[in-house]
């Protein structure tokens, strides 16, 4: 009799909702949102880029919170959450780092630019990669959990410092290019705001679905490790049989 977790935990329906919402967001992006005056249609890329960035920070926060709780409680489920959120967070960070240059090339004529937001994202991406490498090569499971938790906490504390130092550095060496996209605080048209709102919701929902999927995988993994350990342990019958 299998003791694996049940499949019917609502993940299927959540995934469908996420997919539908993403499709709606895509539709709004291309059919509803107005063409931006300065940049033209390429601005629509930002309905992808900005939500990806926001979700990246959400993922980071989840890793931090889970890591903190793990160090406090030492319960496996927090470590599972941290590991899963880090991997999914890396996906969204990669999304941000790839859509950024694709947006930048037609607008600024260059693929990469060390502007504040992209530079910070790049550093964050490296920290996440380091986290994933530590997960992979950090030694035995319990040690890895602790080390990664420490890295996550220190990394999270570094986030605002990275953000501000990069920004100061950028204002000191300003590029001719300034990100002009319709960011909040620059008088967004309501149709843009709605499109952004839907895009944000779709990104967050997709993140949640991916996170749950990854968590499921993580639990499978742990169960596998536990089973392996149990099976390679010498059986008590063998030990006691020499009387």
């Amino acid at each position, binding site marked *: 009799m299998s003791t694996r977790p049940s499949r019917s935990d609502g993940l299927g329906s959540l995934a469908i909702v996420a997919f539908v919402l993403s499709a709606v967001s895509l539709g709004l992006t291309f059919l509803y949102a107005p063409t931006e005056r300065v940049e033209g249609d390429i601005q629509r890329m930002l309905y992808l880029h900005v939500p990806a960035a926001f979700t990246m920070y959400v993922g980071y926060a989840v890793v931090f919170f889970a890591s903190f709780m793990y160090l406090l409680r030492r319960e496996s489920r927090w470590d599972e959450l941290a590991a899963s959120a880090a991997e999914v967070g890396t996906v969204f960070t990669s999304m941000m780092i790839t859509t950024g240059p694709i947006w930048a090339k037609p607008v600024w004529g260059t693929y990469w630019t060390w502007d504040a937001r992209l530079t910070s994202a790049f550093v964050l991406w490296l920290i996440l990669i380091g986290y994933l490498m530590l997960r992979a090569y950090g030694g035995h499971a319990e*040690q890895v959990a602790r080390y990664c938790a420490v890295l996550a906490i220190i990394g999270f504390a570094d986030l605002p*410092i990275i953000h501000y*130092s*990069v920004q100061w550095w950028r204002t000191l060496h300003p590029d001719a290019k300034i990100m002009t996209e319709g960011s909040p605080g620059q008088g967004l048209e309501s149709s843009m705001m709605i499109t952004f709102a839907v895009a944000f919701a779709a990104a967050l929902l997709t993140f949640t679905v991916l996170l749950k999927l990854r968590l499921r995988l993580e639990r499978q993994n742990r169960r596998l490790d536990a089973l392996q350990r149990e099976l390679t342990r010498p059986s008590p019958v063998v030990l006691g049989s020499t009387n």
Partner: protein
Amino acid sequence: MRTLRAILTVVAKDMRGELRTKEALTSTVVFALLVLLVFNFGFEPGTRDVRLVGAGILWSALLFAAVLAMNRLLLNEREGGGLEGLMLTPLSRADLYVAKFITLLCILSLAATVTVLLFIVLYNVPIGDRLPLLATVVFAGMIGLSALGTTFATIAVRTRTREVMLPLLLIPLSVPLLIACVESTSAILAARDFADEAHWLRLIVAFDIVFLALGYATYPAILEE
């Protein structure tokens, strides 16, 4: 304070060991020298204005040399079993962090002093009366690197890919420190009014404090076995 004396005893023992073999110190200085050499060929002599690129060159040398020093120190420690032995003493794990940090800081400061002097000589830096200011910035930077370095060298040396794990973890986290150090140094080399650039030094100090505190708080979790 008994704890303070215990910590300083550990530091003294480590330093004595280091100064006897001079292993970490010499390899660090030699490496810094090599980096300075390489960068010299990286820029064409005429186009290279040390006031513009000098800060980057100096801090590249300092950073890579620091990583090397950390790797050496903690590796020696691990092979000698020193840290495990220290864990049996009445010193708390967090106090061990302080001891390791101080040792690393001393080594790095020594290496940095030599590196900065070499830099000034090799690149003909017109440092004048701004040397104390430069020394302050470099020392403050070394504090930050030592704070993070103690934590992550201890972690890295217990993983399977230790040589690459330390810089991979340390350097991205040190980005704010590096930016601030390079900008401060750049201002000093170009003889700009430092009062305008003081916020960088404040950032360095803030960085040092934050990551010293975090390193202290998390070291017990690292040394649990």
